[in-house]
């Protein structure tokens, strides 16, 4: 089997596009090979800032000749049909076709279409230029006088099949066996013989082509530097993914930050380091607090061991942090309260008014919610009033990610109550599935008010999420409310805040949330049959039901219920109506009837007590005492008695059973 090595050597590929490009290249080659009849081969793709490549192994030297039988029209078909077949089959005249006989269809033409095999190198020479022209870069460009598009100017194409250059050319770039290494630590252009040779030589030219190896190297170096300096590296997977695309070979350097900056909020320092400078941060091992160091991943093994790099980066960082300090100092001169008015000129949505308008609504709403969640009304309204005020600060203007967080710092600076300050920071929470929900009552009140307002507003103007899009993150807002309510066990009837349409939106989101937690959808549907807008109660019902159905008792009760319900359904199809049915004990003939009726009577009040206490497990336990009377009834009693009044009475008894069980859930929904 043969090997194909391809390397596309260009100017620096944006870091964020590298991983995807590597996957796309292998995928497109695979699809191309498949089309050409090469069904099985292995791909090892690689990417570094200036190169995208893949090595394909297990390729044949050539594809075999294929023969395909093409059936044509009957021999007596109209001439037009026969001519069409001649064209489609690629033969000169119908005389080249065979005639086959079919018992049913009669005689018809057949042509054996022979497709010659192709040399794999030829397939590659045709395929690669197509892939280059159609490569799905998120953004591509032209350069020089050419019209070829690539992510950045493409300089070389290395293409070797079994060590031989695959001869092709695209826009003046001719495939070769040459490449080059690291921009500053390479040794010029060199030729390679195959992938093994490529790997050896490219490593010697100081390029690590495997991005996983680059990542591991960055982490190993950073951890070692930290360990040697009493530091603990703060994990940052996103940053690691990015910086591994900015270096051919990482050289990790520790830099020092002026300790004077440590009086800035740590969030500000971390974000400045990460976003602006792409540095990792470290905590002091002893105190666990942010340490005055930064970790740079450089692309250079500098002649001075990195001293100039560390110093230069430290200077840039100082300038950045000085900017941040300027914002911090400036922002604190204006109390948050006096920034609230500025929100009137900040557009929230053209149909929903300004952020100032939104804040006025949140204040009202938070005031209503506060007593329901045990929050102080005055504090909740105060927090709501201030919760967006930091949007007009310089710091949030520079780092939008710090919204809320800066508000908290500025509120504390203004001597607001800590509960109010924390609520400003926490009211955006949870910002994602892995984020925690606010737990303090004031924070909860403002978080709920903000999210309810967003949902109600966007639904009112018809900006609802669609299958493909949710530009205002309404699903996230609803899920946020659901999590806040459930995780804090808040008893809030959401009907008080949203309309019917939104309630069903909430129930849909809740269903997805519960399914993610492995609740069965039939159990959820069974519980949803009971109209309710108290999320905690809904979930408690589902939990109890789910647990009960898994027990033997539950399973048996459900089976009994299904038998009973089936009898009723069959009658209802014939026009019988349960609504008119009344049980008359004097018409009982069998013990089993009597006993089922008696049990229903016995548990009826218990059931209501359990339900009133919202003790669904208790209620289901009470129902389970119905199991043997139901079975006895179903086994011993023939519902379809000749006497119509007895038959009616028995049906009424079963209807009473069904009605009672329906107080807890619709067992009809549950799969048997």
């Amino acid at each position, binding site marked *: 089997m043969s090997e194909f090595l391809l390397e596309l050597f260009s*100017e*620096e590929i*944006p*870091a*964020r596009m590298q991983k995807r490009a590597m996957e796309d290249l292998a995928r497109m080659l695979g699809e191309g090979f498949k089309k050409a009849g090469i069904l099985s081969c292995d791909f090892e793709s690689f990417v570094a*800032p200036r190169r995208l490549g893949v090595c394909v192994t297990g390729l044949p030297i050539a594809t075999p000749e294929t023969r395909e039988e093409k059936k044509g029209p009957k021999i007596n078909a109209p001439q037009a049909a026969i001519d069409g077949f001649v064209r489609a089959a690629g033969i000169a005249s119908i005389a080249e076709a065979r005639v086959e006989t079919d018992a049913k269809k009669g005689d018809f033409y057949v042509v054996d279409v022979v497709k010659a095999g192709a040399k794999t190198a030829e397939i590659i020479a045709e395929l690669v230029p197509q892939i280059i022209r159609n490569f799905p870069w998120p*953004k*591509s*460009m*032209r*350069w*020089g*006088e050419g019209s070829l598009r690539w*992510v*950045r*100017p493409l*300089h070389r194409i290395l293409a070797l099949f079994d060590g031989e250059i695959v001869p092709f050319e695209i826009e003046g770039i001719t495939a070769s066996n040459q490449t080059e290494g690291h*921009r*500053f630590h390479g040794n010029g252009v060199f030729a390679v013989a195959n992938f093994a040779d490529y790997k050896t030589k490219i490593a010697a030219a100081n390029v690590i082509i495997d991005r996983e190896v680059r990542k591991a190297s960055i982490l190993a170096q950073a951890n070692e530097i930290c360990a040697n300096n009493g530091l603990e590296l703060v994990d940052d997977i996103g940053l690691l993914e990015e910086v591994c695309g*900015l*270096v051919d070979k990482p050289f990790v350097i520790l830099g020092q930050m002026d300790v004077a900056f440590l009086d800035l909020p740590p969030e500000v320092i971390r974000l400045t380091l990460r976003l602006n*400078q792409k*540095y990792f941060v470290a905590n002091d091992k002893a105190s666990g607090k942010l340490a005055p160091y930064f970790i*740079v991943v*450089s*692309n*250079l093994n*500098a*002649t*001075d061991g990195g001293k*100039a*790099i560390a*110093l*230069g*980066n430290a*200077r*840039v*960082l*100082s*300038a950045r942090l*000085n*900017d941040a300090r*300027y914002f911090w100092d400036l922002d604190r001169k204006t109390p948050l309260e006096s920034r609230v008015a500025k929100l009137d*000129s900040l*557009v929230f949505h053209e149909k929903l008014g300004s952020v100032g308008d939104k804040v006025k609504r949140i204040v009202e709403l938070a005031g209503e919610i506060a007593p329901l969640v045990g929050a102080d009304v005055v504090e909740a309204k105060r927090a709501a009033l201030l919760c967006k005020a930091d949007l007009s600060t310089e710091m949030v203007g520079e780092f939008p990610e710090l919204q809320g967080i800066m508000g908290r710092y500025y509120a504390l600076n203004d001597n607001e109550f800590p509960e109010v300050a924390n609520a400003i920071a926490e009211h955006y929470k949870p910002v994602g599935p892995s984020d925690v929900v606010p737990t303090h009552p004031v924070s909860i009140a403002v978080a709920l008010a903000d999210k309810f307002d967003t949902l109600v507003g966007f639904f009112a103007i018809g900006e609802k999420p669609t299958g493909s899009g949710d530009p205002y993150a309404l699903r996230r807002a609803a899920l946020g409310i659901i999590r806040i309510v459930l995780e804090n066990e808040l008893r809030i009837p959401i009907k008080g805040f949203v309309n019917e349409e939104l309630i069903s939106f909430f129930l849909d989101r809740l269903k997805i949330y519960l399914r993610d937690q492995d609740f069965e959808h039939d159990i959820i549907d069974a519980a949803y049959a009971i109209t309710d807008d108290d999320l905690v109660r809904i979930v408690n019902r589902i939990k109890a039901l789910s647990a009960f159905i898994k027990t033997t008792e539950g399973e048996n009760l459900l089976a009994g219920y299904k038998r009973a319900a089936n009898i009723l359904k069959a009658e209802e199809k014939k026009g019988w109506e349960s609504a008119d049915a009344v049980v008359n004990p004097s018409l009982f003939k069998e013990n089993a009837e009597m006993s089922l009726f008696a049990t229903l009577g016995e548990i009826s009040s218990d059931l209501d007590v359990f339900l009133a206490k919202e003790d669904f497990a208790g209620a289901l336990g009470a129902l389970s005492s119905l199991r043997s009377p139901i079975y006895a009834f179903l086994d011993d009693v023939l519902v379809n008695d000749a006497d119509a009044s007895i038959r009616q009475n028995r049906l009424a008894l079963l209807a009473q059973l069904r009605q009672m069980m329906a107080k807890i859930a619709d067992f009809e929904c549950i799969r048997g």
Partner: protein
Amino acid sequence: MSESNNISSHQTACSRAYKLGKKPSFQDIILTLSDYWARQGCVILQPYDSEVGAGTLHPATTLRALGDKPWKAAYVQPSRRPKDARYGENPNRLGHYYQYQVILKPNPINLQQLYLDSLYEIGIDPKLHDIRFVEDDWENPTVGAWGLGWEVWCDGMEVSQYTYFQQVGGFDCKPVSGELTYGLERLTMYVQGVENVYDIDFNGQGVTYGDVFLENEKQQSAFNFEHSDAAMLKRWFEDAEKQCGILLANKLPLPAFDWALKSSHLFNLLDARGVVSPTERQSFIARVRDLAKGCAASWLENQQGAAK
């Protein structure tokens, strides 16, 4: 910095400074860049005599990037960003600063290397400093222009913007120009190792950047934020817009472009004054873009006419 052993063999203002054991001055860096790019065949131009927000807006770049005629130019361009003015109190932000601008059409295939060599000429040794090309796509909505490229980092500092022009005024750039913009103050601060822009050694003979520009920053800031007359600015904007239209109607793209630049600067002044609402802002930008697009279209037509 201790690059004195690594400097280029060419006699430049920078190499002379290093030989004397000194760091190059602000003007040494400008002179050296001009010397270097002149050797690459560039026309060394002088700044355009109109207020612009960036060196790109010099017609030598904006207009010359369009059309098929080859073009190589380099120049210093004072750039005015009224909103960034800080009364001379911020060590890094200025309302008026210098960019060194290079445009090469079509871009030579070794432009990255040419650029790195230019850094080497002013004393930045790529074996000592971590130079990186970090994705940064350039866009200037007021002239309907965009390109792909990078910001170039030297030890974590953005020292240049490097762009392959794709469109100007909404028209495809064919061939593509390579555009380099050096932030001269930043670069000099880096080379000289100073923390405050006003401490930059301007001429190597005792004159600082602050001596030359601090008072200007203070007074211009007061103008930008306190004393500009919004009503007059608006009126002038409209007049400039009208004048540009008249010139375009008469197929005079070069003077028309001057008035498009004027209107752009007047908008920047209004913006700095804080009298432009977000909605108005979009509309102003669209109006300036329409002017710039008109100039680009007229220039292209003129170029093609001339070629025939």
